[in-house]
């Protein structure tokens, strides 16, 4: 926990926050994943690609947390 600089009001603004937009927008773009082929391990694209967005979400959120704490 860093002590805040008393002369400057604390804020949660940071350019890193923009990275959070990626996992918010990506899963809502249905045209990216609304197809059956190619299948991965038997999963249609619709399912495996959306499951992989979880990883995108975790990575982006973790980066923002580490860079802004």
């Amino acid at each position, binding site marked *: 926990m860093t002590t805040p600089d008393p002369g400057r009001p*604390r804020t*949660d603004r940071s350019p890193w926050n923009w990275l*959070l937009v990626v*996992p918010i927008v990506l899963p809502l773009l249905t045209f990216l994943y609304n197809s059956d082929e190619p299948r991965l391990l*038997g999963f*249609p694209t619709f399912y495996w690609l*959306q499951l992989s967005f979880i990883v995108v979400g975790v990575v982006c959120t973790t980066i923002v*947390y580490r860079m802004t704490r």
Partner: protein
Amino acid sequence: MSGHTTELVIFTLLFLVVSGMGFVAARWRRPESIESLHEWGLGGRNFGSWITWFLVGGDLYTAYTFVAVPALVFGAGAMGFFALPYTVVVYPLVFLVLARMWSVSHVHGFVTPADFVRARFGSPTLALAVAITGLVATMPYIALQLVGIEAVLKAMGITGHLPIVIAFAILAAYTYQSGLRAPALIAFVKDTLIYIVILAAVIYIPARLGGWDSIFDAAKAKFDATPAKGDGILLTGANQLQYITLAFGSALALFLYPHSLTGVLAARNRGVIKRNMAALPAYSFLLGLIALLGFMAIAAKTKPVAGANGKPDGNTIVPVLFDQMFPDWFTGVAYAAVGIGALVPAAIMSIAAANLFTRNIYREYLNKNATDAQEAKVSKIVSLVVKVGAVLCILALDPQFSIDLQLIGGVIILQTLPSVALGLYTRWFHKGGLLAGWALGLAAGMWMLYLIPNPATGKAHFGGSAFGLSNLGFDTTMTIYAGFLALAVNLAVAALGTLAFRAMKVADGEDATSRADYFADEGDPRVKELDLSAPH
């Protein structure tokens, strides 16, 4: 029903172990006195990353979710998978918002979202609107947890309401005694069981059904054969907008539910919340796999058990699938996971509802000088009343009524977004504008839900959340999430109302918070001011 004896024994054993933990929880991380809302209702506001992860995860991913999402996928296919993008989008969306909510709540000792609105906009009326919306949205959610337990009991061949009454009586007793500590401790068991069961299910069941390829092919064949146009293993042109807006709208709504905030406010500091926003998607992965159980049930030709009205009850497909696939002892474990999965959220929801009543109705209107001990006492009693109400809801009314109410709940809780979530960012809105937006957003939402039929069940009204754009005069079969449209109405009215009230020079409320409050963290002098034993 001798065929289910092993399942029943294991289910009962695990249920009893967990109930014991619920009572012992009062001594866990023991405070000097549990007689304040910060202790009883928020577990001492001192939970670290792990406890928060289990608690919030156990709270958001409820037994009803585990039962209803695969049932939806079983019936409609791809549309039911909206739960996945919903729970991917939600955490980055609220990452900064919840940290602000934590800070301002700790500086001022807020326990509910309505507490915040009261201080931010200086309006008890707006706070009352937010509190009542929260209560109405949460109550049917508690009742639905019973539907989760009931689905499991039905699959074990148990009928009648007595077991549910007993289960909820035990739940009510230990929540009364231990407060938020009980679900926090039980969540460890619940989530561990759920993870074991689901991971076993997604490895073992596909192997028995000939692999994922054949599972998806079986599902595709089934949906191709039905006359309904909206189903299938992919989205259609007409329901993509519904998929997107339902996922996004649900994500916006999730942390407006008072019970989600309860888990967040119980965290020790901002870092705990931010770390959890990065770690909670582990549950989303689980949810995605759980949703696919619906397709497995299609491939396994699972037949749902008939409900009280004689029609097949879709909510029983997962329990029946487990029964079909797993050895008896493991089915018992799986059933216990669902049953215990109902207890954690039901406890947290009833605590959140009780806190809302105590802080924003009792303390605001009935006893302005309530002491901490009085607040805790009222909350404990209200948490009992809420659970009795939930049981009565399920016993006396058609469970369908609770399902309809929960659908409405999602739409109406969204109407608190401008006051609660946007309020954390801007004080621009006038309290009158917010109140007008809330009222018209509610009206618009109810009107849209009323117009939605469900041809599959023959219902003319409240048949779902997919609002046909043709109702608005557009020549299309496309549908959109009713809550999303209602929120748009709400925001437009709130903005116009704010401009109008300003122009008419109607007095606005005082803002009791200051800018620095929104970034305060553990160890700051301002946060330390929140001495838990002192009056606030």
